[in-house]
């Protein structure tokens, strides 16, 4: 039949016209449509709430984490230059450095480790500590069964042997006990690694001692605070330590700050100041309150200077105020870093539980929307059958249902994103204050919103597939039935 081609034009019916017909339907069945819309809004709000919260948390964690590791850098560096390090201590300090730290690179010469082998060496440090800790934390009963009376080192040394290792794995399985990932791979090279760690530690300590004898100070920080950049760079070079120049400058600035902060704290510990403070301002004196007062009121620092209370440390009003502010800021950063890690862990992104909760909630929504759309089809069976009598193609009827659902998915998705986003941002801002605004992940949130709206659209359209199919297959004879 060539003639049927004319009807194909229904497929080209202007989308706007189709949408208009579908929207008419939505208005006419407003209550049920609102119900469907509500389901979409709630589902998308939940999704977007979870997404936004995680995005903000991740952004804060990254931002605050970077600030915190900057704060910790000097301390971490100083440890390597100031203390004698037995092998395990060296491994622990290396493993505890933040990922991407420049420090291990610059200490390769001291440790006698090849630059290429450094990543493996660092990994092995972490493995050694991780598996030792795992073993030490086992319940004593399990330990006894595994070691058969041997101590940890002897046992692990024995496990160099493949047969012993198989036996060990079998025993663990019988207990039953889950061995940590990678342990069996690490065991064969453990002894070898311990040996190279010992060598590295020996090398390191010898070099470190030579370096320490050249700095006439209590420690690296104090020396950096007192010296200038060229001298420091020369000394590092002479000892084959390659510190990147911008890090060195940052370290020296921080060392200077630290020096003044320590001075201020020493002044605040003086009983003379405490007494004078109480007499003057009529307040209970403690360190935290004094720091806050100094940071907020310049006149307190001026008063301190006038009364020559900070004379011992040679701190003038300006320095005192700056130091107090810095101390408070550092504490705030470190506190927030700890809080974020405690609440969200060190990893970023959605965790598996949350993901499943989202999947389940979406499935519930699909069931709900499918139901609502089926009712909508039943409500309209007469209208649909009439349209088929007038020559509507099955595809057109199906498309009408799908457009109706998609329109609601889009609107519901948009409202849901707004609702979920606002709730999440409010909650996060309430919990973490100005950090949220400081590291506000605008672009991530934009993507997240797009994802959430798209899911709302997909959710509604997917749910409408079956009802649309049912509507399309309806027989026109139903329109004849008199109500």
């Amino acid at each position, binding site marked *: 039949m060539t003639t049927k081609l*004319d009807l194909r034009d229904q497929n080209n019916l202007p989308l706007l016209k189709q949408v208009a017909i579908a929207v008419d339907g939505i208005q006419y069945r407003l209550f049920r449509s609102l119900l469907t819309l509500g389901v979409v809004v709630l589902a998308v709000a939940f999704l977007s709430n979870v997404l936004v919260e995680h995005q903000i948390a991740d952004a804060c964690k990254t931002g605050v984490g970077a600030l915190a590791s900057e704060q910790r850098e000097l301390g971490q560096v100083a440890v390597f230059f100031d203390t004698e390090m037995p092998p395990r201590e060296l491994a622990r300090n290396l493993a505890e450095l933040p990922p991407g730290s420049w420090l291990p690179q610059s200490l390769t010469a001291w440790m006698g480790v090849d630059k290429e082998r450094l990543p493996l060496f660092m990994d092995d440090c972490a493995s050694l500590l991780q598996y030792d800790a795992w073993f030490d934390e086992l319940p004593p009963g399990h330990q006894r069964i595994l070691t058969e009376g041997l101590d940890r080192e002897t046992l692990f040394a024995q496990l160099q042997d493949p047969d012993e290792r198989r036996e060990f794995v079998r025993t663990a399985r019988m207990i039953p006990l889950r061995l940590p990932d990678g342990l069996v791979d690490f065991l064969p090279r453990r002894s070898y690694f311990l040996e190279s760690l010992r060598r590295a530690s020996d090398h390191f300590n010898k070099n470190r001692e030579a370096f320490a004898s050249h700095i006439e100070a209590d420690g690296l920080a104090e020396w950096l605070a007192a010296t200038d950049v060229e001298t420091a760079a020369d000394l590092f070079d002479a000892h084959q330590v390659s510190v990147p120049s911008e890090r060195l400058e940052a370290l020296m600035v921080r060392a200077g700050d630290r020096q003044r902060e320590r001075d201020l704290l020493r002044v605040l510990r003086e009983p003379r100041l405490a007494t004078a403070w109480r007499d003057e301002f009529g307040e209970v004196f403690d360190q935290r309150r004094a720091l806050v007062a100094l940071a907020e009121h310049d006149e307190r620092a001026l008063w301190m200077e006038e009364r020559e209370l900070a004379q011992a440390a040679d701190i003038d009003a300006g320095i005192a105020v700056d130091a107090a502010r810095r101390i408070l800021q550092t504490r705030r950063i470190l506190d927030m870093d700890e809080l974020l890690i405690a609440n969200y862990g060190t990893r970023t992104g959605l965790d598996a539980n949350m993901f499943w909760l989202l999947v389940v909630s979406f499935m519930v929504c699909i069931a709900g929307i499918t139901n609502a759309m089926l009712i909508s089809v039943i409500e309209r069976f007469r209208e649909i059958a*009439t349209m088929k009598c007038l020559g509507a193609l099955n595809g057109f009827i199906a498309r009408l249902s799908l457009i109706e659902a998609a329109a609601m998915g889009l609107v519901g998705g948009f409202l849901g994103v707004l609702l979920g986003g606002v709730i999440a941002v409010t909650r996060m801002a309430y919990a973490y204050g100005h950090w949220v605004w400081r590291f506000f992940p605008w672009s991530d949130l934009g993507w997240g919103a797009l994802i959430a709206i798209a899911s709302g659209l997909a959710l509604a359209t997917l749910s409408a597939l079956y009802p649309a199919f049912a509507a399309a297959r309806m027989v026109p004879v139903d329109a004849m039935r008199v109500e």
Partner: protein
Amino acid sequence: MSRKLSKIIIRTQGVCRDYNRNGVITKALRGIDLEVVRREFVSIMGPSGSGKSTLFNAIGALDTPTSGTVFIDEVDVAQLNADELAYIRCKKIGYIFQSYNLVTVQTCLENVTTPMIFAGLIDDQARKRGMQLLDMVGLKDRWDHRPLEMSGGQQQRTAIARALANDPSILLCDEPTANLDLKTGQEINDLLVRLNKESGATVICSTHDHRMLDVSDRVVWIRDGQVERISRREDLNIELAAVEVGHTP
């Protein structure tokens, strides 16, 4: 049209329709043989439950008979797929229902233009033709009313305008006056007769309304799913008189 139009527009051969409700088989149609000639005005009469509506559905390609064949323009309806059926319903047949079946969310004019849009007409043309049709049924000034704001007669006239949208060769009416009072029913009857004369559409009416008999070329009497008899208009006046007499005490 290149094909020579056959004189017979609808032909049924031994059409049977069984309904199976909970295992009980009801034979609604028991072998109907019928031929309708182009431009004819045919009424299908019979008591309720006689199978009028079932026959109507079979003729209108709305339902598939259990056995037997329906030819519309010499095309076997049973051989058509869903899209081809849609084509027939859109262009060849105009349906008029007892309960009007207007789409309540659309205006009067939108109801009339919907089939034209299904047939691929663009909006402006459809509106223009829609207004002409509404003018023809006398509803020009009510074009933007919704069905529920109109009287039954007006709704049925809208439905008639809609049935005429794509200039169909067949108008199928299922008890078009059953829900209307006497006067409006008469108006609708007159309208259908006028359309039959003016546009040359074949009109097939299933009805209880004895006034229809006056205007029909032929009347098909159905009883128990079978054709009882077919009377021509010439014979009708006498018969009608007999009916009137029979009803008068």
